[in-house]
């Protein structure tokens, strides 16, 4: 056992030394010689036609280097969407263009219209105020139901409607579900809103672009949960920079919660402008700007029906959800209300018939994408709420109703395409009832009532599919890139180990916990293991951190790589001790020859 106890040991987080002493290195801490600053002029209307942009007065203001508008990006690619959903009828979703700077129309408050690059942040902002934009305001759609009405204003004129896709899951279940609901003894119907929210990480987004004219290399420093994904999306689809000419660095990142997964227009802008101006260009979002430019979360409106037989067994679940995409498709937006949501709709219960319908809708609002749990809490919220409502309608105990319908035999194949390999929900509920002292609740409630207080009681079961992967599966579901992870484990001359991982830490503490994994496998002290992440120049490949995948997917890559190292070390140990490789044992960081007192320690 390593000195600090290995995997899961409660230890001080090594990254906290820099975080707590103010010596972290966040993107905004990085400043380059000759750096210029950009300020984005953003739309203050939800929907409008741009009839003209007059930058003459602004361009003449002190410190202004250049003002960019949509016209400067005509030959540049569109901000891509990383996931394609196929609808109920086998058609691909409607996918609008997403320009770096607005072209022709603005589609949400915050849509960037122009970008002023100046010698200082204040000068850029002053000049942005002097830009005269002639906008013809158009009627806006912000309500999803209204957006689907015939004749509703269209967010994208070149699409047939505001419907991105109409998805059925599993489409083949549809008829059986309808029939089961028709024949059921009881149907509970619930309509609910899972409201939109702003992710609001402590550190606002920052992007700094740099260009080396001699080597034609571009570098982007950005507040990202996955620098490699940004390298892929921005390099291949927006700016046309091959991966070996583009380096993306995400240093310390102050929280993401999903909102820093996605590739944003500002990243493409600073990288593009740095080359155009041959100067580093930096953007730092203000808090207010974050509210209108970071992708937001949730925003589902759902009707869910739960059908039960005469004995209160669940026989069918049918849902119809409207999911707001906002004005453009953010990187993973289409996947959230579909595969990250529909697949969880069985919850912990053996309901034989389930059908999930999701209509994704464009509106004149800030784009919506993955946020904490992304689609999965939305699913759980519906199931658990409708069960509670059914219990009330039927006059039965909500815990008993759950217990009666728990999946108890494993493996269990749900009607929504996933298989649960193991689980024991009954035991978990037993434990819950014990530690929450459910039996004593009635007495506690009576005591509260005596004091004029109200006491409530809620119970919720949850199951989540974590660690989104592997590549082959997500590819079938519409992912446009593999969701693998990579790790390089390098043994240094001193015996110290450097691990390069494509996972990214932005508050999770990987530098501590990942080191424990490798240290325990070899049996050395975790202090001998160093974790490197967040720089595509140091870590050649990766897909980053989201969907609870860092340990499951990134950790697995690290384990595989460490196994290779151990096997190689075993060969070396066998050679050093002139023994057969088969006789070499590894324990507590020491290789020994079985049945002898010969040994050689790690790093000697």
């Amino acid at each position, binding site marked *: 056992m390593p000195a600090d106890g290995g995997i899961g040991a409660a230890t001080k987080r090594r990254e906290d030394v820099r975080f707590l002493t103010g010596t972290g290195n966040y993107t905004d801490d990085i400043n380059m010689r000759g750096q210029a600053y950009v300020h984005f002029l953003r739309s203050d209307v939800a929907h409008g036609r741009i009839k003209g942009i007059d930058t003459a007065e602004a361009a003449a203001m002190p410190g202004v280097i250049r003002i960019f508008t949509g016209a400067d990006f005509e030959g540049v690619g569109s901000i891509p969407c990383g996931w394609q959903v196929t609808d109920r009828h086998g058609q691909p979703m409607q996918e609008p263009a997403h320009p770096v700077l607005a072209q022709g129309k603005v589609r949400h408050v915050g849509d960037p219209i122009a970008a002023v690059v100046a010698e200082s942040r*204040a000068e850029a902002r*002053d000049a942005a*105020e002097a830009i005269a934009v002639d906008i013809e305001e158009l009627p806006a759609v912000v309500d999803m139901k209204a957006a689907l009405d015939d004749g509703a204003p269209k967010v994208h004129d070149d699409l047939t409607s505001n419907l991105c896709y109409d998805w059925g899951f599993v489409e083949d279940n549809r008829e059986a579900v309808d029939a089961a609901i028709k024949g059921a003894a009881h149907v509970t119907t619930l309509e609910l809103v899972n409201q939109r929210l702003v992710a609001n990480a402590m550190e606002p987004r920052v992007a700094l672009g740099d260009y080396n004219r001699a080597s034609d290399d571009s570098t982007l420093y950005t507040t990202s949960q996955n620098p490699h994904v940004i390298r892929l999306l921005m390099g291949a689809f927006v700016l046309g920079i091959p991966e070996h000419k583009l380096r993306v660095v995400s240093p310390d990142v102050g929280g993401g919660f999903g909102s820093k997964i996605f590739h944003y227009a500002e990243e493409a802008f600073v990288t593009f402008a740095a080359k155009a101006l041959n100067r580093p260009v930096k953007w730092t979002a203000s808090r*207010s700007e974050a509210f209108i430019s970071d992708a937001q979360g949730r925003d589902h409106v759902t009707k869910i029906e739960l059908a039960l037989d005469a004995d209160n067994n669940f026989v069918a679940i049918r849902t119809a959800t409207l999911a707001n995409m906002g004005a453009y498709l953010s990187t993973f937006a289409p996947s959230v209300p579909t595969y990250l949501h529909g697949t969880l709709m069985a919850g912990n219960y053996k309901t034989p018939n389930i059908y999930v319908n999701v209509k994704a809708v464009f509106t004149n609002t800030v784009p919506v994408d993955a946020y904490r749990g992304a689609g999965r809490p939305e699913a759980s919220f519906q199931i658990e709420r409708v069960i509670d409502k059914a219990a009330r309608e039927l006059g039965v105990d909500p815990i008993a109703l759950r217990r009666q319908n728990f999946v108890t035999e494993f493996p269990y194949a749900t009607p929504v395409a996933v298989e649960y390999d193991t689980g024991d929900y009954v035991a978990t509920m037993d434990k819950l009832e014990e530690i929450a002292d459910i039996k004593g609740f009635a007495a506690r409630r009576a005591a509260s009532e005596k004091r004029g207080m109200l006491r409530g009681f809620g119970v919720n079961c949850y199951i989540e599919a974590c660690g989104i992967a592997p590549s082959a599966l997500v590819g079938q579901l519409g992912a446009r890139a593999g969701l693998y992870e990579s790790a390089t484990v390098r043994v240094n001359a001193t015996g110290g180990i450097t691990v390069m991982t494509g996972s990214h830490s932005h508050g999770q503490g990987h530098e501590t916990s990942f080191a424990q994994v490798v240290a325990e496998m070899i049996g050395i002290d975790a202090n001998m293991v160093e974790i490197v992440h967040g720089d595509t120049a140091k870590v050649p490949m990766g897909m980053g951190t989201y969907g609870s995948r860092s340990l499951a997917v990134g950790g697995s890559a690290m384990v595989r790589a460490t196994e290779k190292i151990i096997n190689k070390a075993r060969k070396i140990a066998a050679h050093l001790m002139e023994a057969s490789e088969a006789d070499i044992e590894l324990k507590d960081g020491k290789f020994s020859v079985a049945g002898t007192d010969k040994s050689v320690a790690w790093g000697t």
Partner: protein
Amino acid sequence: MYAFELERPSTLADAVAALSGGEAQPLSGGQTLIPTLKQRLASPGKLVSLTGIKELRGIRLDDAGQLAVGAATPHVQVAAQDHYPALAHLAANIGDPAVRNRGTIGGSLANNDPSACYPAAALGSGATIVTNTREIKADDYFTGLFDTALEEGEIITEVRFPVPRRAAYAKFEQPASRFALVGVFVAQYAQGVRVAVTGASEGGVFRWAEAEKALAADFSADALSGLALDGAGMIADLHGSGAYRAHLTGVMTRRAVAAAG
């Protein structure tokens, strides 16, 4: 923020002179004004800082036994005095430590935010707001939302609080800022009881006459039973409706009376 000039006078006379130029504005703790400037919602040509003026800082009991607080005195110092405990308690619960170390009583009263705490204390105590030119009774001072009887260029120099027999301030906090969703200041004097309500009305801080009358006859929470305010004219926003705030005013008044003991 737009560019501006900054002056740091050390006497009141210099401050008054600096402010007479037009386009100039006093700067005290900056807890309201600086965020306003950062949002580019104001563009004064010149800021005149008051915090370096000795005569505007400090707390004393005046000849009439009133607690006199210099306009540029930060909340943290008011929280530390023990002549008027209810006022100390109010000051100790304004915002967070940064706000209490910088923010001042003069800035708060000049700003007259409809959800601020000090207006309730000043009106609830029948305080006198002293300026460089005159003395204004609290009853005449608060003229509406973010509006006061102050003239252009007039500087608050001191606030004088008659010390009551007993008093308390009960605040239902808006948790993000700790401003009052509803705050009620109750004070009992030989001449009668004053009840001032902040956070509730669209017109800013106000006195609740019925409650004052009831409490003058019987200073107890029970004396208020049956009294209710109307939701009309109350602030309605995402934190609560007008009717909610009207109801909360009754609740907080009873809590304040109970706390005053």
